[in-house]
């Protein structure tokens, strides 16, 4: 077994155990945020890593899941029917969004996802009679916190399984080829649009479910917290900030970002966006420095005289 796989298993086991042990109080909330953020980051990593698409609106699916679940609960359904209905509703909306987005690439995709996030935020603020407006939606407790934690832990495992299976399947290879050159991929017969849709939907569904579980645990969601740019950036950063192969990168990223977020919230109140900003600038600059370093290494390797 490779070292990063063993390390991932250790972190996951620790997360699973702590989710069962700590279901109440501040530690319970922190562990739950870790699991939800890990689900978001790993689901984000599916298109992020294989297609190289940077989404600034991954939280759209999270918010959709939460609101669909909340609306289903407020019409009188119990937890499981509401959860299933929310997944179906979110699936339909997520598919529509994904079908729209699949034609876009690179910076335009990022821009459009940010636009979609703001559209949903404003739309759910305006539809006051259904969504509760800017104050948000409050629901009664439908299942115990412990059950919520266990379901979230299961969702994380399923998301990791999806990540691993997708990256090892032929669709994963197709998506890598699509990222390298869409035209070349089409020439050799890869259905690039289908690959993108499949990849984006594999990322969207776990995010929707995470949203529903988040609402079930915390009983409240608002347009600002559901369709949150900060949540999208957390997922983006967590999947990028630690350059390690497999799911270890996003897992370590989530541990680092969520802990940093908690410290910032408690110690540097009012500067949480600024800290996120600093990490974003650092991550982007690292990308530039890393490219130059790799370029220098390959130039040295190609030119024996430069050794």
């Amino acid at each position, binding site marked *: 077994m490779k070292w990063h796989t063993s390390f991932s298993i250790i972190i996951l086991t620790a997360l699973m155990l702590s989710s069962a042990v700590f279901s109440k109080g501040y530690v319970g909330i922190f562990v739950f945020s870790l699991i939800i953020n890990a689900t978001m980051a790993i689901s984000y990593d599916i298109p992020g890593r294989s297609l190289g698409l940077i989404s600034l609106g991954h939280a759209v699916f999270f918010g959709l899941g939460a609101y669909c679940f909340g609306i289903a609960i407020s019409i009188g359904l119990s937890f499981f029917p509401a959860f299933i209905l929310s997944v179906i509703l979110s699936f339909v909306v997520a598919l529509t969004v994904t079908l729209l987005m699949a034609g876009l690439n690179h910076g335009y995709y990022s821009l459009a996802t940010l636009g979609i996030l703001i559209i949903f935020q404003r739309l759910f603020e305006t539809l006051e009679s259904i969504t509760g407006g800017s104050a948000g939606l409050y629901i009664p407790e439908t299942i115990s916190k412990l059950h919520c934690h266990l379901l979230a832990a299961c969702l994380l495992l399923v998301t990791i399984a999806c990540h691993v299976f997708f990256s090892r399947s032929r669709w994963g290879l197709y998506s890598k080829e699509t990222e390298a050159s869409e035209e070349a991929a089409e020439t050799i017969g890869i259905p690039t649009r289908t690959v993108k849709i499949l990849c984006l939907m594999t990322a969207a569904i776990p995010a929707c479910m995470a949203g529903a579980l988040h609402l079930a645990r915390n009983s409240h969601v608002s347009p600002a917290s559901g369709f949150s740019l900060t949540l999208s950036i957390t997922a983006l950063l967590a999947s990028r900030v630690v350059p390690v192969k497999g799911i270890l990168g996003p897992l370590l990223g989530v541990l680092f970002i969520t802990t940093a977020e908690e410290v910032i919230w408690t110690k540097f109140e009012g500067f949480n966006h600024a800290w996120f900003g600093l*990490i974003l600038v650092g991550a982007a600059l690292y990308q530039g420095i890393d490219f130059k370093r790799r370029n220098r290494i390959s130039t040295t390797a190609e030119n024996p005289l430069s050794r």
Partner: protein
Amino acid sequence: MLAVGLSLAFGIMGVLNLAHGSLAVLAAILYKKSLVFYPFSPWTFCVLATPVFLGLGFFLHLIIAAPFRKLSLSTGVVASLIASLGVALILEDLFVWWQGWEPISTYIIFPTFNLMGLKIPGLRAILLGMAVVTIGLSTLFLKKTDLGRSMRALAQDRETASLCGINPGVTSMGAMGLATILAGLAGIFYSSLYPLGPREGLDLTLKALFIVVAGGMGNLRGPAIAGLVLGFIESFAGVLFTYTSTDTVVYSLLVVYLVLKRCGRRQ
């Protein structure tokens, strides 16, 4: 003016600068703070702010453009997008810390004048005239000066321009400086007419991006016309629906436009 600056930054450097609107907010805050010391008129402050924003543009170039110059277009755009989003978030928190949540307004009372029976608000007319003059001067700068011509050459073909002896680093730094000045001036004009929230920078940037995408990257005329069209759309959406739904309409149009054009599909 915001869109014209953004268009310059993207056309010449391939930078989608999400901190552009925050620079406008910064200019508005600086103007408001300066009013405590001396009652500057917007146009006097524009002249004073120009060198400050030029310097700020050079500094910003070192963070969001220069490190990604050698990356491929797609990777470079994404990296600059992430870095500029980071800068925007940092600036927003600093604005709230410095200024508080109170909207920034530098509105000044100005007489309304009559033109053939039409009542025209003086301040709006002067600011419109100044915006037209600024865009005109920028166009002249791009067309008639050596640096402006180098910028246009770089926007058309980076490699060929470099082969002809144009220094891409210095030229893009100049473009970033010009784009930042335009953002600063836009912020001063905007806050003279409407209150501007300390966290409105990203909203302003996105609207400007809509104008740039619709009007075409790297030119000045297209964004200026698209800006006018967006203004009309916002006004009509406010009348037809509710005032709060104007953003939804504008962003929906942005997404629909991007999807219909399938932007970026072939790079």
